[in-house]
C-alpha cells in the first residue's frame, strides 16, 4: 500500500490503522465515508467515483503534509476508492495516529474537509429514476441533499 492512494478494490481499514500506528502513538482515529442508501428521502442505488488519479494522489499527500505541519507528531494515511460502490461500501478512509487524542480527532476532520475541497475525485449518484454527477455547484437544494 501507499499512504496516500486511490484504489479500485474494497478498502481494509486495518491496513491503514496498522500503517499509522507506532510506539509513540497513544491514539488512532479512523474515519470512513460510506455509501448511504437514503439521503433525505432519495434512495441511492449505487455510486460511481472517478478520479484524476495521479493528481488525486498528489493532493492527498499534500493534505497529509499540511496536517503534519499543523499537528506535529501525527502520522497519516488516506485512501479513496473509485469505480462502482454499493451501499455501505467505504469510499474513503482516513487514519491518523498521534501521541495524544485531541490532535488525532482534529487532524482527521481537517483531512476530510480538505479532501472535499481540493482532491480531483467526482461522485455520480445513481438513483432509481436517474443519475447525476455531484459537485459543489450542484447542491440539489430542492432535495436538500447534503454531503456525508
Amino acid at each position, binding site marked *: 500500500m501507499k499512504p496516500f492512494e486511490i484504489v479500485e478494490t474494497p478498502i481494509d481499514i486495518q491496513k491503514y490503522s496498522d500503517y499509522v500506528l507506532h510506539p509513540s502513538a497513544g491514539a488512532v482515529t479512523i474515519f470512513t465515508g460510506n455509501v448511504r442508501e437514503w439521503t433525505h428521502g432519495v434512495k441511492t442505488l449505487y455510486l460511481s467515483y472517478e478520479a484524476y488519479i495521479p493528481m*488525486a494522489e498528489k493532493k492527498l499527500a499534500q493534505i497529509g503534509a499540511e496536517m503534519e505541519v499543523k499537528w506535529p507528531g501525527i502520522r497519516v494515511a488516506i485512501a479513496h476508492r473509485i469505480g462502482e460502490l454499493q451501499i455501505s461500501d467505504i469510499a*474513503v478512509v482516513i487514519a491518523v495516529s498521534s501521541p495524544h487524542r485531541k490532535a488525532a480527532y482534529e487532524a482527521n476532520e481537517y483531512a476530510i474537509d480538505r479532501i*472535499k475541497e481540493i482532491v480531483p*475525485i*467526482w*461522485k455520480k449518484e445513481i438513483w432509481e429514476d436517474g443519475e447525476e*454527477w455531484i459537485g459543489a*455547484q*450542484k447542491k440539489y437544494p430542492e432535495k436538500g441533499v447534503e*454531503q456525508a
Partner: protein
Amino acid sequence: MIQVHYFARLRELTGKGQETLHRDSMTVSELLDWAEATYPGFGADTIQVAVNEEYALKEDVIHSGDVCAFIPPVSGG
C-alpha cells in the same frame, strides 16, 4: 501540443477522456474559452484547470508538452 483531460460530467459531455490541442502556448483563460466555444454547456466559469497536476491560475501560460485537466467541482469523500 497540449494534452487535455476530461473527467466526470465533462468526459460525458465531450464524449472523450482526453485530446490533444495543436498549440504552442495559450493561457488557462484561453483554454477555458476554447472549451466553452467547442463544447456548448461546458460551464467554464465553474471549472478549474490543472496544469501538470497542479491547480493553475487563469493568467498562467500553458506550453507545448504540458498536460492539462479540466477540474469540475470535486465531490470526493
